[in-house]
């Protein structure tokens, strides 16, 4: 019996087993940041504060999911010679939408993130998923894959930010946890505030992840 390939329709309900795999894999076993090692650049820049990372994560989930959906819908009609240009156009257009919407409805977040919203266009995860998945799969699965990868990126981003903000400034989302300043006992670790610290924080995350799940270690 062809049990291994489960047709999502036979499962009933909205999301079949295969579909759930698309959502769950990028959270751990195929995480875009720690396993595929894509999109590290923005992880350096915004993880200094939790609130910035949350906004960035939401923005990326939207761009990744929407672009995957759109490109999947268009995949059979895009002339092959301009394939990547069309992908870029879709990504850039969506990022513009995010910028305009943030500027109008979440102005403080817009000011905080400033250039980094525009840099989502250059985030390898988005283009990577379009090429690797959306171009060859149906819209529903591409959409779920986009959300899954966005979530995988988002949770690592926020986790890094919690570490960097706590040890770099002694706060969490602006609230003081470790008191710094003249009356506090905690001497803020200034290295954690600088982007370079994200490199080894993410290295430590990759280490922990592979220690917890040895299956993920490269066998080569």
């Amino acid at each position: 019996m062809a049990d291994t390939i489960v047709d999502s329709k036979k499962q009933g309900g909205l999301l079949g087993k295969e579909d759930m795999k698309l959502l769950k894999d990028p959270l751990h076993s195929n995480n875009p940041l720690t396993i595929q090692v894509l999109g590290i650049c923005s992880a350096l820049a915004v993880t200094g504060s939790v609130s910035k990372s949350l906004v960035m994560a939401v923005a990326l989930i939207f761009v990744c999911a929407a672009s995957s959906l759109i490109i999947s819908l268009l995949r059979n009609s895009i002339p092959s010679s301009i394939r990547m240009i069309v992908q870029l156009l879709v990504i850039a257009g969506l990022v513009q939408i995010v910028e305009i919407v943030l500027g109008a409805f979440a102005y403080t977040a817009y000011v905080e993130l400033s250039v980094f919203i525009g840099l989502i266009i250059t985030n390898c995860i988005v283009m990577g998923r379009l090429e690797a998945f959306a171009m060859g799969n149906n819209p529903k699965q591409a959409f779920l894959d986009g959300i899954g990868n966005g979530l995988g990126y988002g949770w690592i981003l926020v986790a890094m930010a919690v570490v960097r903000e706590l040890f770099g400034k002694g706060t969490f989302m602006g609230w003081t946890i470790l008191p710094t300043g003249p009356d506090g006992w905690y001497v803020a670790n200034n290295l954690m505030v600088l982007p370079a610290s994200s490199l080894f924080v993410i290295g430590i995350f990759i280490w922990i992840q592979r220690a917890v799940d040895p299956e993920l270690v490269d066998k080569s």
Partner: protein
Amino acid sequence: MGEKKEMNVYAYVFMITSVTALVLSLLYTSLNPIFEANRAEAKKVAILSCIPDSTIVLEDPESVKTAYDSVKMIAITTSGQIYTKKDLDKINEMATGGAKKYGELAELDLANEEKRTEENRLYPVYEYKASNGKKTYVVAIRGNGLWDKIWGYIALEEDLNTISGIYFDHKNETPGLGAEIKDSDAFKKQFIGKKVFEKDNVALTVLKRPKKGEHYVTGISGATITCDGVTAMFAKGMSKYETYFDQLKNKK
């Protein structure tokens, strides 16, 4: 299996770019007014945040509006000429060098004024009168940080010399270092009570090593160039207001 029929590349490009352009321009025209309103609001909050009046509440747009109603804004030139809201047309006539024209006086922005020639350049003065009659004057200064522009609003007491409040912002300074001029409350607090002018010169300096004195403020570790930029910003920016301040003092 037949060959996949591809649409003509140029037709496709035309189609997809038209659709994208249409969607983006529709969104932009409908949301841009809200965005501009947000920017204007943020500017008002920045100015009001300098004013040392504990009755000012900046929680919601309503209270910001009420507080800002007590602010009287004028524009001055280095030669001491004063322009008010009523002189908007004259102000726009002076917009040389490709500087943008203003829809109202509140839009006056130093970044735009930089494009004008010095004789035509305007500097804002925001006069706030508290309920107990005490006046605060907020002025705007602009200069260069390490990577790009920095700017600030300085609130002065009625002697037009003692700083009573301060707000700094920057385009692209390093987070944790140069950006601390905006984020560090400890840094900004130092300015309160310090005096800007010594006789006729701007004397306020941000120093590397702490030094006692009414003109000295200690800088931020690792942000020397940004702090030097702040000193230079004060020297250049505050000197523009000297003629106007002398006029005000003589009137009293």
